[in-house]
């Protein structure tokens, strides 16, 4: 009798161990999938680089036109040794960050506050579309006349590249709030400002961060275009100078650094997003 009970109980007492195993297996499976993806990406990169290296080592015209991975690596090493890469990255990074902050700050503030008044948002809509359609490069000569050839003109270029995008994405987030949710706030007795602060702003965060991720790249493009027009330092300056001297591997070397900077900034925005929206982590 007792033995019977014991055998009947056995599966239930064992179950914690048994449920732990599939969890570990699932975790291992997920890790393996991630590693496979990474390995495939690295293989593609290696294949691409070796093909490039091979093609350019056989043909000197190719080598001149396209550089080669080994030459690019050589220039990168040289840029690190003479310290120019740090200075250029610092300058371009600073311009990008300041443009990114100023542009997103004003764009987001205006975009969110347009939620407040349907009248104002409808009045300004065509102006915003018009401003948004201006190619920022076309403004560069004027920006230099207005702000000079120093740091400020690059920050201005960067800001302008960001501000309309930030405005549109945050406005879209604000007007996309579920009307039922607004009604609920109203029945709870919320004032318009309370609805704005407790509902509209947090509900727009996802769109705002989508905008932030997008505008990291735009801010960097703005800064580099600004440096193209006139500058004495920065990654854009290095690219422009190497390009006009036909040192193509050096152009690529500076581009590699620019890409690394863009990846770093995007990574930081992603981290901040996770920090500011903890409720998205637990899903």
């Amino acid at each position, binding site marked *: 009798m007792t033995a019977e009970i014991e055998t009947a109980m056995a599966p239930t007492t064992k179950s914690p161990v048994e449920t732990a195993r599939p969890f570990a297996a699932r975790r291992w499976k997920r890790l393996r999938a991630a590693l496979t993806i990474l390995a495939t990406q690295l293989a593609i990169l290696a294949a691409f680089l070796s093909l490039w290296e091979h093609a350019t080592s056989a043909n000197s015209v190719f080598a001149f036109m396209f550089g080669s991975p080994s030459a690019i690596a050589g220039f990168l090493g040289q840029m690190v040794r003479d310290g120019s890469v740090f200075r250029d990255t610092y300058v371009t990074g600073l311009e990008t960050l300041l443009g990114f902050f100023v542009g997103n700050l004003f764009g987001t503030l205006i975009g969110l506050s347009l939620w407040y008044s349907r009248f104002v948002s409808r009045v300004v809509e065509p102006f915003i579309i018009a401003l948004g359609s201006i190619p920022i490069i076309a403004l560069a000569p004027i920006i230099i006349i207005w702000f000079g050839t120093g740091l400020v003109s690059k920050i201005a270029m960067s800001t302008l590249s960001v501000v309309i995008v930030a405005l549109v994405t945050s406005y879209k987030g604000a007007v996309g709030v*579920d009307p*039922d*949710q607004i*009604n*609920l*706030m*109203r*029945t*709870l*007795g*919320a004032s318009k400002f*309370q609805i704005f602060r*407790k*509902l509209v702003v*947090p*509900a727009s*965060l996802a769109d705002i961060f989508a905008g932030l991720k997008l505008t990291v790249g735009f801010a960097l493009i703005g800064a580099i275009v600004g440096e193209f027009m006139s500058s004495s330092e920065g990654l854009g300056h290095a690219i422009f100078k190497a390009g006009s001297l036909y040192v193509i591997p050096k152009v690529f070397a500076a581009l590699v650094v620019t890409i690394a900077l863009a990846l770093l900034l995007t990574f930081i925005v992603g981290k901040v997003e996770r920090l500011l*929206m*903890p*409720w*998205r982590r*637990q*899903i």
Partner: protein
Amino acid sequence: MTAQGADRELEGVMSAQARTAEPPLVVEHVAKSYDLDGRIMPVISDLSLILRVGEIISIVGPSGCGKTTLLNTLCGLLLPDSGHILWHGREVFGQPQNVGYMLQKDLLLPWRTALGNTMLGLEIRGVATAEAEDRGRAMLDQLGLHGFADHYPSTLSGGMRQRVALARTLVNEPDVLLLDEPFASLDFQSKLLIENDTVGLVRQGRRSLLLITHDIEEAVSLADRVIVLSKRPTKVKAVYDIELGSERTDMMAVRENPGFSHYVRSIWADLDVVRQ
């Protein structure tokens, strides 16, 4: 009990006395239509009802009969074309006070925890954080969500989320609850359990409840009165006083009462659902 608690209790007694004199909600000949690109579409043609203190009324009607329009009109989110809506004997402009509102969608804010969502109304009314937290926690405990106060909605099941929504409604101690198909998306078990809790808390607090639903069994099992609406343009088609004992709080046991199926069948016939 703290002084604050005693105060609140006194307040409750006083408002209970005030409430016995006046039904909290009177609807007189309300009509409402929509303007669809110049075409006037009448939704509610003529609707009157009285919701008394401590009373539970269910409203059922065929699909698309304007139940949600009715609810939004009662809440002051829409203006009626004609007729009067009296809250505690007075016409109100804007949102009526002490009314709780709950929909099929839980409308929980994903960035707030269960407790944060529950406290929303108290926070809006400026109740001190410590007190709001205590009341929020107590309400969640009462609804069987002890230990889930700090969970985000995305980690809760549908039934639990709807319980949080109910807690958010009840923590404001509303005199009247307006519920629009609040349990329609839940599975049968969760639904029965939350219905039991809702009725228990409504009866215990001498609150009034207006429940809009598609579910005839839900309507009959919860209510003192069931109002059947006609097709659009809507008016009252029939009214049933449900005599299954007003102190019932077990929605499963009610279904075994022989009267129950009788009511359900009559209301089903009233709804006049055409079989294709």
